[in-house]
């Protein structure tokens, strides 16, 4: 089936920058809050006000552009994008048009063949709009009784990242967004929370018969509010468009809305009546001309980026590509792992297993991120070290981990409080073994006669006597020595 069709996807990604203040005024940038509590005459578009560009936002954009290997413009412009909408205070958006700050980059993402380069067309700066709440009707403006406007978000610095149509499936789009998200997180330029809208993804997708040169009819998909939704929405669209081609029914160029519940897309508006945004250079701002010196300084302070980190995790810790992929999907996870691995003397793979197999399960159930977890990375290292030393068993360690997760207490304290410490002292254990042999002479004789089968029974007797705190390995060794050698 898939061999008969080719899918082409290009993404437009909006990222809210985590600056202290808004793009063109001094209002604070934050999520939520009482409506219209972070506004001023400038971001409300009051008569006579003027924008002044936020230098930190420009710096963040340069950081993103450099991390994506873009060419940085020596001279670029802000433009006004003119259209009427009540959530836009000036009824134009200050954006960049034919003269963006960053051009022609790429992001290398993991693929079946190792790595694939996805072209970045441009990265530019703009301002965010406010938020409308349409009350009554179906929640859209047309049917509502009235609308409320919250301008807290208006003027938040946004970066738009546009990819080349190099992505070939919904799955690849998912990988790209995951990778880009990790990169942005590593750069420290954004909260990259899709659920809060600080990372927003729109996709252009078209399907054509294999071998055709012309692209198929392009459909824009909006309202994908999680990385998973990106995959689901694009998979749905791929399938819908393939079926249309199979059936010979026409596809129209349009914008489609993804519905989280049904997993389907539906038509929002046809692109036939394209908007005329009447772009023209923003006369209230001067051209943006980042100095070569500034750009070089930013380049120098770029942190280790996910592709480099992946390579290092393989070479430095000897991890498998799959484990590395999981650990580096977020820089906070990668950093957490490294902090734990550094505190641990043994094989770092053991730390990876504890994180992926056990800790992630606890995080999932609690519905929180690793960064919000109460366990400090060195405490996980301490727990694994106790297992290695035989102080507690692997099974006990899982119980301890759950308690660490709940209370944030160090593992040694929990083990002590629960009386879990294993007795490995041979002298202490030997006394109980002798007692068990004396109480069960028949069983002991059977073993002595060369039948090791009932050995487990004797081990169980010893463990019972010692309330399960004996190190079973040591018990086994002593019984062997006494009865079988």
């Amino acid at each position: 089936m898939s061999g008969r069709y080719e899918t082409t996807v290009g993404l437009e990604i909006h990222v809210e920058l985590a600056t202290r203040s808004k793009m063109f005024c001094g209002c604070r940038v934050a999520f939520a809050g009482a409506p219209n509590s972070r506004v001023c005459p400038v971001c409300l578009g009051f008569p006579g006000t003027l924008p002044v560009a936020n230098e930190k936002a420009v710096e963040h954009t340069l950081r993103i552009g450099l991390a994506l290997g873009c060419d940085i413009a020596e001279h670029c412009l802000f433009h006004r994008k003119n259209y009427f909408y009540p959530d836009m205070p000036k009824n134009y958006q200050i954006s960049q048009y034919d003269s963006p700050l960053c051009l022609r980059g790429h992001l290398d993402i993991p693929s079946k063949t190792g790595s694939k380069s996805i072209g970045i067309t441009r990265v530019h700066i703009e301002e965010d709009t406010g938020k409308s709440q349409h009350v009554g009707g179906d929640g859209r403006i047309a049917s509502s009784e009235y609308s409320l406007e919250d301008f807290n978000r208006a003027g938040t610095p946004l970066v738009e990242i546009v990819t080349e149509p190099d992505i070939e499936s919904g799955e690849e789009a998912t990988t790209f967004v995951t990778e880009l998200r990790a990169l942005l997180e590593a750069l420290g330029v954004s909260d990259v929370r899709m659920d809060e809208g600080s990372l927003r993804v729109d996709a252009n997708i078209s399907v054509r018969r294999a071998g055709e040169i012309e692209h198929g009819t392009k459909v824009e998909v909006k309202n994908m509010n999680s990385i998973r939704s990106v995959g689901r929405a694009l998979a749905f669209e791929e399938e819908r468009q393939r079926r249309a081609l199979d059936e010979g029914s026409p596809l129209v160029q349009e914008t489609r809305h993804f519905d989280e519940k049904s997993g389907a897309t539906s038509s929002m508006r046809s692109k036939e009546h394209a908007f005329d945004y009447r772009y023209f250079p923003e006369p209230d701002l001067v051209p943006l001309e980042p100095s070569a010196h500034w750009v070089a300084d930013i380049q120098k302070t770029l942190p280790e980026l996910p592709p480099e980190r992946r390579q290092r995790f393989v070479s430095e810790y000897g991890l498998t590509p799959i484990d590395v992929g999981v650990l580096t999907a977020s820089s906070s996870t990668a950093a957490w792992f490294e902090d734990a691995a550094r505190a641990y003397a043994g094989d770092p793979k053991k730390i990876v297993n504890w994180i992926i197999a056990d800790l992630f399960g606890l995080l999932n159930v609690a519905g929180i991120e690793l960064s919000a977890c109460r366990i400090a990375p060195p405490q996980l290292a301490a727990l694994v070290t106790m297992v290695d030393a035989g102080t507690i068993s692997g099974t006990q360690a899982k119980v301890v981990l759950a308690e660490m997760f709940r209370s944030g207490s160090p593992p040694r304290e929990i083990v002590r409080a629960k009386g879990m410490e294993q007795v490995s002292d041979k002298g202490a254990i030997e006394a109980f073994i002798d007692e068990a042999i004396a109480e069960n002479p028949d069983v002991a004789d059977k073993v002595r006669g060369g039948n090791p089968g009932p050995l487990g029974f004797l081990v169980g007797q010893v463990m019972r006597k010692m309330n399960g705190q004996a190190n079973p390995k040591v018990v086994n060794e002593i019984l062997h020595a006494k009865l079988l050698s």
Partner: protein
Amino acid sequence: MSGRASTPSQEAPLQWRTATELARGLEARELSARDITAAIIEQSNAVEPVVRAYLKSTHERALESAVAADERWSRDTTLSSHDGVPLAYKDIFVTRGVATTCGSRILESWIPPYDATVVSRCEGAGLTSLGKLNLDEFAMGSSTENSAFGPSRNPWNTDCVPGGSSGGAAALVAAGGVPWAWGTDTGGSVRQPASLCGIVGVKPTYGRVSRYGLIAFASSLDQAGPMARSVEDAAALLQMAAGHDPMDATSIPREVPDYLEGIDEGISGMRIGIVKEFEGGGTQPGVRSKVEDAYRRLEKLGASLEEISLPSFEHGISAYYLIAPAEASSNLARYDGVRYGYRQADAADIVAMSSRTRAEGFGDEVKRRVMLGTYALSAGYYEAYYGKAQKVRTLIIEDLERAYSSVDLIVSPTSPTTAFKLGERTSNPLEMYLSDIFTVPVNLAGNAAISVPCGLSLDDGLPVGLQLIAPALDEKTMFRAAYAFEKDLGWAGTAESRPPL
């Protein structure tokens, strides 16, 4: 301040003294701010029924502020040398707590929550505001006839317009209702009314005065400018507000020279250009004769005059009427009834609400320019209109740069005509647009210019203005020449310069 000259008219009634003279009286403790303010308010009230300059008076507040200024004078804690001198603002400057309409119904109910930078700087110097003055709606016009609240009148002949768009300010300053005022100049809106009312009007270099809090008409052309009855006052008022403002990215971050220092040094040896392309240009004989007298006077004062050619200037008006409306169409998009100002609340949905708000809130000239500008920026027309107009603008800048390699200043009439009758040009917008033929190229280039009175036309007895155009940021040379001319003419400050109201 060294070299500061004085005009000895201390005997003149308070309302006819210049701000500089009033400041001197305050400094000598011979005058009180309260007496000055009361006298000027009295004159304002006397002329207002005839000139109709005010959109909002703040006389009571001004009197209270004057008392506070007197306190400061008595304690030697004054805010500036002009502490307590009254002024007024064209109603395009945003004033906290005081209604600001921009001459439009759409902002009739708007009380701003902040002050324009010009306003806060003047308040910081202790100047007290008498109120907000009439203008063409959103500064679009040359007569104040486009004000939603009715036109102002020219104090020299009340059947005539005062010019515009800063016509209310020009009329009030000329009529002795305030010593000086702030106007704005996008295509001649300070200089043309100054010329028509017989006062001084300055269009500073673009970026010299902050535009923050100045309601935008055409952002790349708008500039605040002082209007006064003497060159010295105009220079002093500019001095108070000029300089970089972190709230305006287009304001120039360069130090402001002392405009009064050396203002009386004369113009001996100065090279002054006369624009060949401005010859003819529909200039009335009465205006031409006064301006040619002025040229001879400049020569007599030691300047050398030469003809220069600025071929691009003939396209100035065409380029201006594409660029200014284009920017206006975008600047005025925010008046949609959603957040402030007039709202047509009976509309069924958001689209109807916004379109009806704009249909009812804007006047005809504003609508005409918003439509012109929308068209000029539309896909498929952008290059032919807006793009080409920007190229003309570049040519004008290049022509001027070339000219300034051989001359220090350029002179011309400010307006081709004296004040015209109310209603005379309202039916013909193109004729109205030609009022700005000599002033518009200066805005396109961003240079500084001043209009200084040449006396009265022999044809109709109405004032004529001389325009002096300086290179960017060379206001100092411009003031020096205007000052020398004004002093030698000896008209300003005399009884002859006061309109017979």
